[in-house]
């Protein structure tokens, strides 16, 4: 019953997304341009070398194709809550018989579904045909990869969810969202493959949720990690999702009280 309502929200944002024709085509082009540029930078860095630290150029290429591909449909709206607090519509939305978070997720997933079909797939086709991607390490790797992509999105969404809760206390969350995204960009492997990070940084990154977003799925796809390591990767992803959502919910309850006291 409730599921139906969430589906309706998801469908609505799916359709809304289609209104911006230009934005859409440019978005695909954008992903491809960035991909080509990253690959070219690494080609120049590699020069004549076959492999660096056991990482071949084709692994690097695959890392960028997969990471940028995931990024293209990993939709989070960092300003979903702050926008609604800002214009006061939060009060009426909380009266709806569906959970606010459920609705937020449904809206994001609707957009994500649109991006998956109309952005990720065409961009991937072009990338695979014209740039070339390593084959997955095996059928099992491919299956586990898909699963870890889902959890990867979960981690990214949960980080945003937690940070959004600061909207209850800050007039403007643009600054902290921007800073949050700096950490995601640098530490998730989307801009620099984590293999090439200095050892000291690798040790730090281990204890953050960021590598769980893009890098863990890529590692599984390439067969760079196997067996127990894969299980460890999944456990880490799940632990992070649970922790981040948990903290987010605690903040949500505190924030909600503040909102009620101030009368929205």
């Amino acid at each position, binding site marked *: 019953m409730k599921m139906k309502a969430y589906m309706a929200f998801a469908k609505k944002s799916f359709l809304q997304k289609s209104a*911006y024709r*230009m*934005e*859409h*085509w*440019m*978005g695909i*082009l*954008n992903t491809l*341009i*960035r991909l*080509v*540029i990253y690959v*070219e*930078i690494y*080609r*120049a*860095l590699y020069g004549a070398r076959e492999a*660096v*630290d056991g990482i071949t150029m084709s692994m690097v290429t695959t890392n960028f194709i997969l990471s940028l591909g995931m990024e293209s449909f990993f939709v989070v709206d960092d300003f979903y809550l702050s926008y609604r607090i800002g214009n006061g519509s939060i009060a009426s939305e909380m009266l709806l018989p569906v959970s606010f978070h459920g609705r937020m997720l449904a809206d994001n997933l609707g957009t994500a579904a649109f991006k998956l079909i109309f952005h990720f797939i065409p961009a991937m086709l072009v990338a695979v045909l014209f740039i070339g991607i390593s084959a997955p390490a095996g059928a099992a790797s491919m299956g586990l990869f898909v699963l870890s992509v889902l959890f990867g999105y979960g981690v990214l969404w949960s980080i945003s969810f937690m940070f959004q809760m600061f909207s209850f206390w*800050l*007039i*403007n969350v*643009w*600054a*902290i969202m*921007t*800073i949050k*995204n*700096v950490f995601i*960009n*640098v530490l998730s492997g989307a*801009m*620099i493959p984590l293999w*090439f*990070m*200095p050892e000291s*940084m690798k040790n730090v990154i281990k204890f953050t949720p960021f590598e769980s977003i893009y890098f863990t799925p890529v590692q599984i796809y390439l067969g760079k990690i196997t067996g127990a390591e894969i299980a460890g990767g999944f456990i880490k992803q799940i632990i992070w999702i649970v922790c981040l959502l948990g903290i987010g919910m605690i903040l949500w309850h505190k924030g909600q009280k503040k909102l009620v006291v101030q009368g929205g």
Partner: protein
Amino acid sequence: MRSDALKLSAVYTKMIFRSWFQYRVDAILRSLAVFMREATSIIVIYFTLLKFDSLNGWNIYEMLFLFSLVYVTYGIMIIFFTGLRDFGKTVRTGGFDRYILRPRGLLFQLIFANADWFAAVGHGCLGILLFVLSAAKIGVVWTPARVIYYIFSIAGGVLIQGAIFLFLAALNIYLFETNALKEVFYWNGRKFAGYPISIFHKAIQFCMTFVVPFAFVNYFPSQFLLRKDDMAMYPEIFMYITPLVGIVMYLLAYLFWRVSIKYYKSSGN
């Protein structure tokens, strides 16, 4: 500029500062966020070159110098051109109509009513920091001639980016949504403008030289000072014409802007 226009720009600036100081903490956080966001590329190139030593013959300090030119010019440009960056929103919300209803130049109002001094602090500080870190280590003797060359190149780089903003702003009058277009042609270009263009595919080199000529903002001026081997791929004259490119582009963008304003009045939005 007439003294009266100067006075008005001073009043606008006073208002902007007052608005910002209404939310002091937020203002500082914003500048910090801009600084960090822009530093992302620097952190990435720094970590990358720890592993790989050099990129097509450019070492880390030369790379930082290349990046510094992008940030210094952008920092100066954005003080004045924020209103053009956000022009799409101004048009959509009807704010542009209000500018038309006031007896002052449209561009003048857009520039001074929206000047973003605080984002400029974020970009500018990063640019200056990078310059300071790299200038002494790139083997350039800063003779007066080179300093003058540097200043003119900065001015040219500011004009080139200002022209792109003006052009993209005018485009908002024809298109409902230009953010994606901007993302592709401007932000992408800028994100990678810190890399020597010689490493890219010919098509991208062509774009960065003749379409969205970021190469004239930093790559060619740096080549005048650094004389790296990869300059052999390009005509030597490119090292000297940044100011000229800036002026020509700005004039063209301004003409397009004038035509677009006429179109706005005849088509509505």
